[in-house]
Every structure is written in C-alpha cells, then in structure tokens.
C-alpha cells in the first residue's frame, strides 16, 4: 500500500503540487487524471522518487521513502516497475536485452535462468518471437508491451505507468489497459496510472484521483465519476464530444 500525506512540490517559486493526500491499495489499479499541467507527472515522479517532495511524506507499506538509507533505497527501487510515456526502452539493446537488463543488474541468475524469465514475461505480454528485434523495429503498442515486460520482470510490488496509451490507437490502448489490469490482479501489484484518456478510466479505473492545479480536486471510483457534481470533474470528463453526446442521450432517456 502507498500512502501519500500532504505532498508539496514546486519549481522556481511555482507550486506544482499543493498538499496532496491519498492512498493506493495493492491489487488495484488507481488512475490519476487531470488536464495537462495539473501536476500529474510531477506527482508520479514524486511517487517513484525522481522528484524529492518539499513537504509531506510518501510511505510504501509503512516505509517513508525519503528516510531510506542508500541501501534501503536500492532495495526499494527493485520493488518498483515503471512504464514511461515514451516507453524509454534502451534503443541500442534488443527486446531481450532490454527486458533482461534489470535481471543482469540485480540478480545472480545464470544466463539460462534469466532467458527463461525473459521469455516468460514476453509471453505474458503476448510478444513471442520478438527477442532479437530492436525497439525501433517495433510498433508503438509493441514498445509499450516490452516496457511493461521490463517493468514486471523483477516481480515488482508497485507498478507505475505514465500515460501508457499516449500515441496508441483506441484498440491497442484497450489491449494495453487490459494487460496492465490483468497483471495487477494476477501479481497483486499496487498499480498507479497517470492518464487523461477517458477510455482507460472506463476500462480499468478502480480508483480515480482527479488533480487540478496541483490539488486533489476529486477522488472516487469509475462509477462515481459519471455521477459526480464536482464542476471541475464534469468539465474534464465531458470535454469530449462523444461523452457529451452520451450524457445528453442519457438525460433524454431519463
């Protein structure tokens, strides 16, 4: 479980996060949504330790990450899997080398054992027979799946995804969403996803946190989000013409 308490972060005098408090439960997929510039990425980067909070705490199963010693921090890092917006695959390495990289760095397994594990996770993300391909030879969706495979190869306790659907067609986006949710449930991972894709919200949003101007403006489930009266959430959710039409149809039917 991840517990965030009164998180503040700013850059050059501008406060980006203004006292966010929330929690993320294991085995569940939590979504952070909000407009561009609302602080989603800074929040996610603070969770994974790429940004140091100015104030507030983030506790991973009761352990506050800013109080870790170097060795504890190294251990904690190995419990984290991260899927970056642009996949962040090492472009000079093949798919197999990318996925094997964390195993090489942090385990003493033999080449055969590592290869078995790599093939297992690649199989899990439906990417068989792509071991020798370079990231540049893969489609956007395949790159995302390799990134997911690399993120889960060390059996992480926490999985973070920054805009996992950006740049993907709707069908591939659904495949990626479902894959993340399946993995979350299968391995009881605490998963936090940063997105502004409403399809993702409808597909996999078990818990949704809405950020606006660095403040947690709303928190609830995907069922609640379509019923809320919170003006900021309504503006965001119904900013899409499709959702506006669905809403007007619903109103007319009622």
């Amino acid at each position, binding site marked *: 479980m991840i517990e965030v308490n009164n998180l503040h972060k700013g850059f050059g005098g501008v406060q980006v996060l203004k006292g966010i408090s929330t929690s993320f439960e294991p085995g569940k997929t939590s979504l952070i949504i909000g407009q561009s510039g609302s602080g989603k990425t800074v929040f996610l980067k603070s969770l*994974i*330790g*790429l940004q140091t909070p100015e104030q507030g705490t983030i506790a991973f199963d009761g352990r506050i990450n800013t109080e870790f010693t170097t060795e504890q*921090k*190294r251990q*904690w*890092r*190995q419990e*984290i899997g*991260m899927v*970056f*917006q*642009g996949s*962040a*695959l*090492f*472009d000079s390495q093949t798919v197999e080398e990318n996925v094997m*990289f*964390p195993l*090489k*760095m*942090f385990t003493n397994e033999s080449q055969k054992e590592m290869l078995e594990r790599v093939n297992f996770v690649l199989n899990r993300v439906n990417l068989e027979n792509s071991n020798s391909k370079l990231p540049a030879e893969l489609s956007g969706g395949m790159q995302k799946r390799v990134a997911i495979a690399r993120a889960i190869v060390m059996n992480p306790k926490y999985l973070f995804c920054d805009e996992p659907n950006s740049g993907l067609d709707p069908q591939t986006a659904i495949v990626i969403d479902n894959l993340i949710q399946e993995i979350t449930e299968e391995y009881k991972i605490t998963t936090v996803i940063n997105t502004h894709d409403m399809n993702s919200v409808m597909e996999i949003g078990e818990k949704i946190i809405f950020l606006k101007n660095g403040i947690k403006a709303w928190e609830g489930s995907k069922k609640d989000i379509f019923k809320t009266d919170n003006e900021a959430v309504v503006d965001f959710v119904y900013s899409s013409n499709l959702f506006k039409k669905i809403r007007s149809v619903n109103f007319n039917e009622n």
Partner: protein
Amino acid sequence: MNYIEHIGKYFLMLSQVFRKPQKWRVFYESLFKEIEELGLKSLGIIMFISFFIGGVIALQTALNLESPFIPKSLIGFAAKRSVILEFAPTFCSIILAGKVGSYITSSIGTMRVTEQIDALEVMGINSLNHLVFPKILATLFFYPFLIALAMALGIFGGWIAGVFSGLFSGVDYVTGIQTDFNPFLITYAIIKTLVFAFLIATVPSYHGYYVKGGSIAVGKASTQSVVWTTILIVIANYLLTQMLLT
C-alpha cells in the same frame, strides 16, 4: 547559468561517476562496447589523417629549408618533433573531440530526453556511473595506443612524401628521426593524451547528461560540447607544456 556553477556541477557529476560499478559483469560488457565505439571506430580517421599530415609536415619543412648549410636530416628531425610533440597528441585529440565528443553528447542527450536515464534511475542504477565510467576507462585505455599509432603513421607519411617527391632522401629522413631522440618526449605526449582522453570522455558526457528539451537541445549540446572540449584541450595543452617541458 554562470561558468562557476557549470564547473561545480561538472565536479559533482564526477563524484557520482567514480563509484564502484553495481555489477562488474555489466560494467565489463559496457567497457568493451565503449572501446569499440570510442576507440576502434576512430582508428580509420586517425590513421588516414596522421599519414597525410605527416607527409605535409615533411614537405613543408623541406620546402622551407633551402640553405645548403642546413643538413637535410633536419627535415626528419623536425617532422618527428612536430608529430610526436603536437600533431599526434593534440591535433588528433581535437579531431577525436569532434568525432567522439559529439557522439557521446548526442547518445547520452538522447537517452535523457527519451527518459532512458530516468528509467535507469527508477531501476536503482547510478546512471552516471553506468553511462560515463566505462567511457572514461575506454578512452584512457585506448587513446594512448591510438596516438602512438598516429605518431608512427605521421612519421611514416613524412618518409613516403619525401621519397615520392624527391625533396629529400629516405636515408636523410631516417637519420633525422634517429638524431637526438629523447624518450621523455614520448612520455610527455602520452601524459597529454591521457589528460585529453579524460576531457574527451567527461566534458561531452556532462553536456549530454544535463541536456533539457528535445532534439534541437541535443543538437545544440553536441555543438557546445565539441567547442568546450576543444577549448579545454587547448588550455590543458598549454598548461601541460609549461609544466612538463619548461
């Protein structure tokens, strides 16, 4: 950002670079890859340029020594001194600063803007140690060989140029090369090479690692890194010459 801040940040970067590698097996793999990328792939250009510049130095010296009272062996002597003292270590290092420096900055810079460095950090890897330390060791290990080869080829190029042009004989040239040979000059050249190799690996790494923005920023950082590496090589060359030869 002012220069003092850059210098401070550069040394802070070095303090992170010089750490024990987290996994020796991965480190050795990176080291051999860097030796190939930064060293072996520069062999061709260095061999080509050394050979022809050596020839030009010998021809220029021969054409400017018209007095019958000056022995022809002086051409070989002058070519040897020029190649060993300045051309091979300094000129070749400046060429390498352009070729290798821009490669290092653009590769690390691209890793930065595509979040590959963030990915390393999230995994718990010291990204500076992982990316920069093998580059430093690769250049420190390989460039002395490269520069020694440049010396040999430069002197050989001078001999070929003389023989083919008929401006001086091969015997005179070889006599000049053997005259007043001081082994310390080779040591001096190797010391310079090691200092330049360190600059070639670290200054472009600094520019690449701290780049902010996108592809244009990476391009600008590459240019800046070549300019600054060249400037620092020239300054270091002056200081080392002052310290070691005067």
